[in-house]
């Protein structure tokens, strides 16, 4: 078991965003996290990546308690993530974005750089090659020297994943990776996620696009009003009566 979430609660000013959520993610494979708007999915991801601390409950990574640790500690333990509202570094080039993402794994001492030692140049060259590989991995190598803000929406999503990959994570949290994309983009993203899983990376995926989730995930957890509704394989989940109700209820109120 790579990740265990036990009875996690998080309140914001009296409102319970998460209320005793439990979740287990096994090593390898793609785990889906779905639920209507406001179910607390992003809050959960924020807790898993250390951006928010849980009000109570515990989070175990490889059996080690990690809840309440700051984001950079969790990143150091191999958790990487993307954001729903894409947080790339707009003024950097794509390559620079990925190189910045190498923070956890790259050695970049100051003094060799200060004295222009060859070792510094060699290291930078290696890191550059590795960053280019990450860009190639997500299919935007051609954009390496473009400023990130000049990318298309889909490319930005990819860039953000490339940056996350640069830290060679064990667990990758993807927050709505295909939100707002057309069919073609969704398919490409699906292939990317699959190939990452095939390499043995564990992914936790938040998504609204049901077809996308059903097609990719081996297991799915459903959240509703801050509680775990159910966990199961796509087949089980899609036939779960409460799940159907939760989604129908939402779509009704939206209509």
């Amino acid at each position, binding site marked *: 078991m790579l990740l265990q979430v036990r009875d996690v609660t998080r309140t*914001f000013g009296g409102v319970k965003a998460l209320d005793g959520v439990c979740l287990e993610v096994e090593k390898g494979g793609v785990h889906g996290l779905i639920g209507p708007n406001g179910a607390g999915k*992003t809050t959960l991801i*924020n807790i898993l990546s250390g*951006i*928010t601390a849980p009000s109570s409950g515990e989070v175990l990574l490889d059996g080690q308690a990690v809840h309440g640790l700051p984001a950079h500690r969790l990143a150091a333990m191999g958790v990487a993530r993307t*954001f729903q*509202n894409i947080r790339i570094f*707009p*003024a950097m080039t794509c390559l620079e974005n990925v190189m910045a993402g190498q923070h956890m794994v790259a050695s970049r001492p100051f003094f060799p750089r200060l004295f222009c030692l060859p070792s510094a140049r060699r290291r930078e060259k290696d890191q550059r090659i590795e960053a280019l590989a990450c860009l190639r991995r997500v299919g935007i190598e051609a954009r390496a020297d473009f400023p990130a803000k000049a990318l298309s929406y889909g490319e930005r999503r990819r860039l953000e994943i490339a940056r996350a990959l640069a830290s060679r994570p064990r667990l990758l949290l993807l927050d709505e990776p295909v939100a707002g994309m057309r069919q073609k983009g969704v398919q490409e993203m699906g292939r990317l996620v699959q190939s990452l899983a095939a390499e043995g990376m564990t992914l936790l995926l938040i998504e609204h696009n049901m077809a996308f989730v059903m097609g990719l995930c081996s297991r799915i957890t459903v959240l509703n009003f801050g509680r775990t509704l159910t966990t199961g394989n796509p087949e089980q989940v899609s036939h779960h009566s409460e799940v159907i109700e939760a989604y129908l209820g939402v779509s009704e109120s939206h209509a």
Partner: protein
Amino acid sequence: MDLLAQQLINGLFIGSVYGLFAVGYTLVFGVLDILNLAHAAVFTLGGLLALWLVETAGLSLWLAFPASVLACGVLGLILDRVAFAPLRQRADSNFSGLISSIAMAIIFESAALGLFGARTVRFPAHTVSVHIWRWGGISITSLQVEIVAVALLLMVGLTQFLNRARAGKAIRAVAENDRTARLLGIHVDGIIAFTFFISSALGGAAGILFGLYFDSLSPDMGRSIELKGLAVIILGGMGSIPGAIIGGLAFGLSEVLTVAITGTSNLRDAVAFTVLFAVLILRPSGIFGRRKMREA
């Protein structure tokens, strides 16, 4: 006892002056998240212009006051058009807006210096009639009462305006989220310009009242109140109108009480800024600020 009562009155009064200055300041801050450092210069120009209208053009104060306030509103429009609107789309509009407002402040202040001279001047005596009431050792002037009243009226009136009037609601919508406001069909640029108009008009009015009460107007009169105004809008919570007035009162009282309690005035400003510092660290959203949730 008289001493303390008088000090409380002093604090209430100077606090209202800070509040008056801060109301317009905080309005722009609330809507655009930008500090308009030219506000103090508009404040100065408002006072000096009204004086010029009274003294040189021979208008009565009742005409000069609205005329000058209007002119300051127009200055606000210019400010928006020249210094802020062109920068709005920039990623670093907080930084660059700050600087362009400083540039405008320099230009405005040099205009004040060039047009009105560097000397400290005042409204002609008896421009407004002043009564002084005394009870025992306590004294209050009618102007003090009027300024406190104007500050409170403005607080209530502006709050009502923002809550009730169409334009006021539009301002609040833009303050909340300009993109959503645009989607709702609000003419965002117009609303921002309007906000600048009101803010600067209020700044000008504050300048006139300030000049009337203290019998002293000079091109650099905005400087000393600028920092305190900044402190006040932080204390009160950014963008909060009642916060600006109450923050002003709190700041005024903290100054006065420092003098009253320690008996000396060396520490007055140090205490005020230490309080500000502490508030920022302990409660960054200010005493009355909505805690703006910054999403992760």
